[in-house]
């Protein structure tokens, strides 16, 4: 009997691993992951450091601010890109005062993209603190923030001087404190060198967050993709009626089990391949760099690799535990959706609520990241369907006590067993039922057969 389950596992595994899609995923997934991580910040810098110089017309009715703006933009390297200025300012000779003629003319220039916008600094700016910014596109926050900052600084300095304070003195006095963060864990080693520990403490947190993000994202995307794969496989067997032949050889629950184990192994194989590649890469990083003519990594990256090296196997062990348990839970449900439907189109509709149950914790995670010890996070992390993502996130960023983790895992296992018992019944009947999809009431009746 066990041999036949292995036959099923083998089929599910080999038919997936042998496809071009599998090879492509192995190569493309890390690339996509990198793009998704890097792209947003890349976009921000691109936006700021675009090649073209942005031209703005300034109405300076105070007569005192324009030259200081010019100087501020000249002096700050932040406003330069490849030796060129990012912002080009032109002072308009006349006053604005809502003059329609000037406005129309400027709007035409805006339309023709000769200028990117215009700024009106009224004469009473030092009292009313009001400056107007006109542009075609108001979502360019970077530019708006830059002007707000530069003009604010000038106005503040002017107001300070008017009251008889020296601006640079005030700035020195107003300096903020530095807050350095340390993650305290039960196993933290004694800090020897306070100075380096300060830097490491902060960077570790960031790298850890990044790593957690990658791992939770993998949990999410693989459950989503390969759960659907289980569903399609159940549907295929049902619509071709192969399932009737198979379940006369093995019990339906054995078929389901073989299927889930087979598909789960495909995912684990991928993780294994990536993990092995990453380890090899980290161990041989210097020879590989030598190929590109570099001696060693830039110091920040060395820091990152060191942190990853020091992360230890426990994080990855938890990853495996929560991936496997989450996968078993969700793919069982996916399989049931496949069993009660008659076509892929139908299944796509029915599966939506299930996908929601996966998407919701993933969405919540971004908020919960910040408050990993809040009651809400703790409660959600113990909801079985949310556990794989949220509990794993909690473990990665905060590490709750071991007993809590163990209880959580026990609850997960109990849920999986329960789900398999209940869903196995529906699956068993569903795969032999054709025609109309059962209603919820009928499903309830099936449980009592």
């Amino acid at each position: 009997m066990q041999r036949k389950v292995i036959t099923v596992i083998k089929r599910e595994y080999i038919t997936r691993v042998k496809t071009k899609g599998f090879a492509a995923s192995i190569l493309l997934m890390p690339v996509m992951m990198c793009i998704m991580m890097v792209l947003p910040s890349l976009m921000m810098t691109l936006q700021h450091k675009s090649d073209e110089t942005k031209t703005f017309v300034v109405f300076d009715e105070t007569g005192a601010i324009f030259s200081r703006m010019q100087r501020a933009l000249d002096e700050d390297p932040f406003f330069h890109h490849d030796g060129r200025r990012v912002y080009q300012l032109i002072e308009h000779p006349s006053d604005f005062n809502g003059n329609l003629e000037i406005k129309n003319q400027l709007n035409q220039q805006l339309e023709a993209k000769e200028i990117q916008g215009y700024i009106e600094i009224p004469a009473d700016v030092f009292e009313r603190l009001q400056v107007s910014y006109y542009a075609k596109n108001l979502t360019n926050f970077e530019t708006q923030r830059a002007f707000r900052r530069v003009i604010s600084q000038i106005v503040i300095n002017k107001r300070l001087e008017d009251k008889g304070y020296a601006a640079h003195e005030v700035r020195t006095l107003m300096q903020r404190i530095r807050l350095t963060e340390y993650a305290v864990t039960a196993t933290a080693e004694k800090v020897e060198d306070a100075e380096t520990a300060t830097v490491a403490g902060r960077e570790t947190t960031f790298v850890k967050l990044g790593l957690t993000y990658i791992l939770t994202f993998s949990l999410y995307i693989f459950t989503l993709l390969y759960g659907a794969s289980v569903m399609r496989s159940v549907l295929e067997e049902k619509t071709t009626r192969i399932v009737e032949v198979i379940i006369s050889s093995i019990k339906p629950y054995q078929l389901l089990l073989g299927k889930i184990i087979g598909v789960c192994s495909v995912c684990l194989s991928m993780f294994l391949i990536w993990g092995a590649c990453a380890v090899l890469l980290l161990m041989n990083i210097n020879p590989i760099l030598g190929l590109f003519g570099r001696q060693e990594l830039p110091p920040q990256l060395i820091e990152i690799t060191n942190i990853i090296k020091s992360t230890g196997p426990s994080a990855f062990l938890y990853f495996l535990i929560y991936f496997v348990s989450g996968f078993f839970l969700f793919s069982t449900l996916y399989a049931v959706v496949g069993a009660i439907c008659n076509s892929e189109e139908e299944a796509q509709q029915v599966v939506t609520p299930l996908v929601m149950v996966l998407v919701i914790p993933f969405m919540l995670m971004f908020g919960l990241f910040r408050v990993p010890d809040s009651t809400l996070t703790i409660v959600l992390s113990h909801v079985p369907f949310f556990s794989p993502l949220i509990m794993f996130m909690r473990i990665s960023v905060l590490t709750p006590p071991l007993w809590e983790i163990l209880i959580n895992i026990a609850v997960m296992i109990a849920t999986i067993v329960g789900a398999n018992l209940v869903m196995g019944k529906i699956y068993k009947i569903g795969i032999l039922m054709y025609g109309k999809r059962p209603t919820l009431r009928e499903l309830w009746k099936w449980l009592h057969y």
Partner: protein
Amino acid sequence: MNLVQVENISKHFGDFKAVDNISFNIEKGAVYGLLGPNGAGKTTTIRMIMDIIAPDSGTIAFSGNRPSADFADRIGYLPEERGLYRKMKVGDVILFMAELRGMNRVDAFDEIDRWLQKMDLAEWKNRKIEELSKGMAQKIQFITTVIHKPELIILDEPFSGLDPINMTLLKDLMLELNADGATIIFSTHIMEQAERLCERICLVNAGKIVVEGDLKEIKKSFGKGSVEIEYSGNVDLIKNSRFVVSCNDFGQYVEVKLRAPEHYNALLRELVEASVDITRFELMEPTLHEIFVQSVQGEGGRADAA
């Protein structure tokens, strides 16, 4: 010796009685027909024999034993609507099904080659199922059903959707396997097929057995209910005869249904006396189709599809 014994099995789904107290025995080496209209309970009965679903009541035994997982390996089953894993290669699909039926790989490899050769599909072994034509896929399906040399072969509507050439091929293979000792159960709603292949039949309708037993006996017991008459003269004489229930005019001849089987002599006398020129007067055995319609209508006209 009976290979399969089905005793008083019933199965209902909710309020619907799919199978209602059915019993029959199948002798070893028989070709057994399970007949009836669509929705009569054939597939449910087969599924219970295959131990895919459990009967609500009644028992099924193989050679006197309760069905076991072990016995599943000695059955070959071709479900009604076939398909195979479309993305898999022909050889791999057959191997998978053979392993599920408990064959070891080495034996399976040999058998796969032998069967593909026999079916003229050897060069398709490494092609994907989705590349095959429908007829080829059906042949592969048949191979997966019989590759493990089952003692009992269950074929659910095996001929539906087959072209005449493949139908003949499949029929010949069925008879060949039967000659080698395999017992065959096959279900169909097309009575002519059953009539040609089966020794024994079980006719079911609305979950109940209508007739069961040796086909020849059944035919005999239903008597010779109709007469074919070739004649020249006035057809109205035949139509209006008091011995005739109905009369079907085919131009060259008429098919006449008698009020009672023993009335044929009376009818012949009547026609001769009325100087109708008769060139042929033949008593016909009832076809399975007629038996079916007759029995089902006797039950209250519940045959909506035959």
